[in-house]
């Protein structure tokens, strides 16, 4: 585990170095050759072991039982989701998550039934990587983790340094029992994704780059809770559709202000107004900036380094929050 983590840090450092060298591919993916190899390896493990088990699991267990298993693990996850909502300043959402846990654990019989959703308390999707993103930390290079799959430098560090510790299963004292629970959760998750995985594989021209693009777009959307500001997209200006601006016009306009923390609302509001056509996603990394401050220095075609300039801050921040957990009393 520790070795795994230090390996990851090394990867992060590599990503930092790789950022300077331009490869032919996606600027978000300086580690592409390693990533592709790991992706192929993961796909092999999935097809040989995980997917067959998940298919068997789906065939053997009736749907209501599988829903119960999914709900059980989802309920445990709600505590950590709530903590992250609070860390992001969304106290109301956090309280709702804790309420979900309280209701589902009691009325929902240890979380087997998601009564809270029916009562109007919506499930959220949060983790520490999103919290860091909300705080303005860029995602860094795209990284495919062994077995765990697509991630980024920021999200992987968050996963190992924070999310695993915020996961109640981590505190199951009996190690074989804990590992068994991890296994069941993994299989259950995979079983839920069987149809979707096949769909993506069918849709993709190049499965790896399809998954990479989907991961990066999805994470960005999650950080903004589904309402990411539009980014200007010079590629869109090549079209002749009505309502498009010319490329010249687009370049003269300041890009939408990026970011974060407590000041997200005005940015989202600003995104509703007429903006320059969205920029190709890979072009610009979200950078910490005061809301309302136009990122005019970011030219439409230029892009920021793959690893955020404040990369050291990523580590500092994740270390910082670990002590934060002690304060929140999550650690026994």
């Amino acid at each position, binding site marked *: 585990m520790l070795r795994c983590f230090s390996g990851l840090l090394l990867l992060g450092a590599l990503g930092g170095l790789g950022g300077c060298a331009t490869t*032919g*591919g*996606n600027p978000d993916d300086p580690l592409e050759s390693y990533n592709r190899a790991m992706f192929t390896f993961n796909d092999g493990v999935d097809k040989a072991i995980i997917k067959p088990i998940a298919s068997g699991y789906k065939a053997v267990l009736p749907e209501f039982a599988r*829903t119960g298993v*999914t*709900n059980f693990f*989802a309920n445990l996850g709600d505590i950590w989701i709530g903590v992250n909502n609070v860390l992001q300043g969304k106290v109301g959402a956090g309280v709702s998550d804790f309420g979900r846990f309280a209701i589902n654990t009691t009325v929902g019989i240890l979380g087997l039934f*998601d009564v809270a*959703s*029916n009562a109007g308390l*919506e*499930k*959220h*999707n949060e983790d520490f990587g999103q919290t860091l993103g909300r705080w303005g930390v860029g995602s860094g290079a795209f990284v495919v983790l062994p077995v765990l799959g697509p991630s980024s430098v920021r999200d992987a560090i968050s996963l190992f340094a924070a999310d695993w510790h915020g996961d109640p299963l981590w505190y199951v004292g009996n190690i074989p029992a804990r590992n068994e629970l991890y296994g069941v959760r993994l299989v259950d998750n995979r079983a839920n994704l069987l*149809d*979707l995985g*096949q*769909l993506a594989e*069918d*849709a*993709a*021209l*190049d499965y790896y*780059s*399809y998954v*990479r*693009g*989907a991961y990066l*777009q*999805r994470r*960005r*959307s*999650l950080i903004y809770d*589904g309402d*990411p500001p539009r980014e200007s997209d*010079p*590629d*869109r200006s*090549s*079209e002749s*559709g*009505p*309502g498009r601006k010319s490329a010249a016009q687009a370049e003269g306009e300041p890009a939408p202000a990026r970011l974060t923390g407590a000041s997200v609302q005005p940015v989202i509001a600003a995104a*509703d107004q007429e903006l320059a056509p969205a920029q*190709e*996603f*890979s072009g610009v990394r979200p950078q910490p900036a005061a809301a309302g401050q136009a990122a005019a220095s970011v030219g439409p075609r230029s892009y920021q380094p793959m690893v955020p300039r404040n990369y050291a801050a990523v580590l500092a921040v994740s270390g910082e929050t670990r002590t934060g957990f002690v304060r929140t009393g999550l650690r026994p």
Partner: protein
Amino acid sequence: MIKLFVAFCFSLFATAIGAQDVAPDALIRSISDDVIGIVKQDKDIKAGNRSKINDLVEAKVLPHFSFNHMTALAMGRNWPKANAEQQKALVAEFRALLVHTYSGALSTYKNEVIEFRPLRAAAGDPDVTVRTQVKRPGTEPIGIDYSMEKTPGGWKVYDVVVGGVSLVTNYRDSFNAEIRENGVDGLIKSLASKNRSLATQSGAKPK
């Protein structure tokens, strides 16, 4: 005869006006209601009959999609590099691929509830995003957003964004790479072979 022709012209005119009158969110809502109503009732579709799903999508959904615009968006800066003939071939192949994906997604439908979020657009804006949320028990709702443009034939969808992932621009990386290595014709070829393998795999006739 002339009377008939005039009536015909008038009816064309009337449908064009009618199509324009439908607000973009109302249009998406009526398509969704229509399609889901059929999917819920049709036993063949529930059993996963792909060719029947394809027919449904072809009849009800595709007329409201602008595949030219979608293909241009996926191609990005490479779009003007393709000549008219190549563009036509690209649109046809990309259309087939998207239809396959859309039909596949439809066949996994299980009583999810679609909610419409209020349309935030200035009056007269020719480019709007209709935002919906799909609610599934036990998991967080997933957003499906439709980017739409106003055309003389009514509002047309040119991008579908599922959970923040654009089904169109997500192809850009692989399109770019393919064009860099094998040119526009190489991309057309690989799209065509992808479609062929999907068609044989699902047993549906190639479109």
